[in-house]
């Protein structure tokens, strides 16, 4: 929650004003770019994500460092669990991702 997750924008979702698909270590999910309206993010940019919203644009090197930090803190798994919980790109079942509470995030 306090530690951000880095991701790379791989697609701006057409017909939506603020949604984008990001890639986080191979997992692709939809996030919201509304809080970066002044920074005009484009495909290929790296961002720091908190709870499904991009909070800042960063460099690729900073993204890699942040991933390393999460891994070193033992938070990588929790971070990836959070990312997997975001909207999947192929949304056949829009609410399928809302977990029925299989377990807490911080384990």
């Amino acid at each position, binding site marked *: *929650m*306090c*530690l*951000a997750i*880095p991701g*790379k924008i791989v697609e701006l979702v057409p017909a939506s004003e603020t949604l984008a698909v990001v890639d986080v*270590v191979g997992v692709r999910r939809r996030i*919201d770019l*509304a*809080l*970066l*309206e*002044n920074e005009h993010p484009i495909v290929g940019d790296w961002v*720091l994500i*908190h*709870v*499904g*919203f991009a*909070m*800042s644009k*960063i*460099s*690729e090197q*900073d*993204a*890699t*460092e*942040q*991933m*390393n*930090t*999460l*891994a*070193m*803190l*033992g*938070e*990588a798994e*929790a971070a990836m*669990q*959070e*990312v997997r*919980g*975001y*909207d999947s790109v192929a949304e056949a079942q*829009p*609410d399928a*991702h*809302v*977990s*029925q*509470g*299989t*377990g*807490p*995030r*911080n384990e």
Partner: protein
Amino acid sequence: MKFVDEFRDPELIHKTAEEIQRLADPARHYRLMEVCGGHTHAIYRFGLKDILPSNIELIHGPGCPVCVLPMGRIDDGLSIAQNSNVIFTAFGDMMRVPGTHGSPLEHKARGMDVRIVYSPADAIKLAKANPEKHVMFFAIGFETTAPSTALVLQRAKKENLRNFSIFCNHVTIIPAIRAILDSPDMRIDGFIGPGHVSTVIGCRPYEWIAKNERKPIVVSGFEPLDLLQSIVMLLRQLRAGESRVENQYKRVVPWEGNIAALRAMSDVFELRPYFEWRGLGFISQSALRLSEEYAEWDSERLFAIPGIRVTDPKAAQCGEVLKGVLKPAQCKLFGNECTPEHPIGALMVSSEGSCAAYYNYEHRKAALLTSLGASA
């Protein structure tokens, strides 16, 4: 990009540690507070205590939102969800936090409709998919998560979504620092400022600490090198008798913060006159609630809230640990009755809580060394 399990620039880390040795006046005892729970976790994980000279003491601050939430708020939130028409949603971090009659997860096991969400936007989706139900989002966090809650509320209002509300527990970091500085039993020489909170609020809000309280503060990144460099910057200021706001984490934190996020927050939230923090007591203007314009999406206005106040178990000394008066292992319950597997106090629940961090790294390490010593 992939995970790499190694420190960046080990040589530079070594040099920076030497620089700290050089800068630290052996005649002084330094008390530096890292405000953010992510930093606390990193400090234990990286074993920074072992690198630092013994006269530099790191005090763990109040920056773990789960840890500072009074138990009564959890009880209040769960009391709303006793209504069978209500779906209780929260981030995973909240699910194991104990209320008086158990955690949200334990309430779920007893039949309450409790669901983990990964983004507040998920809660809105759930509300749309369940029009016959009311979806309550138990919002928690400092300024890293508050802007997302604000945006989601703006959307709920725009779409006139009526079966959705927020039980708002967002807190703000600056008044907590102020309360710590005002506390008579606290002596802090300088602050390691939060990294990702500062991407939102920027560095300007810390200026009063430097100007009025005459304490240096350095906004820091999370890597070992970041934290050590921030300590160097603090020691340099202390040596020169200065107190300024510095930004060690410039590569990520803009001085002005995230204007769009601040704007969304000021549209949706207003400051509560006061709010209770676990361990720190009531702090004025330290938390956010929904403004009048968003009253129809405010769980506290929509539902009757018991306003439960729970005093922490007497034996648990969370308050003293939170204020840095006691070290985690000095609490009577630490490691025997209160463990990460069976937390009694909130500081043991979250990995960002200082007790859980201390237990997971220092305590386990000591236990391992003891057992190795015993078998040798």
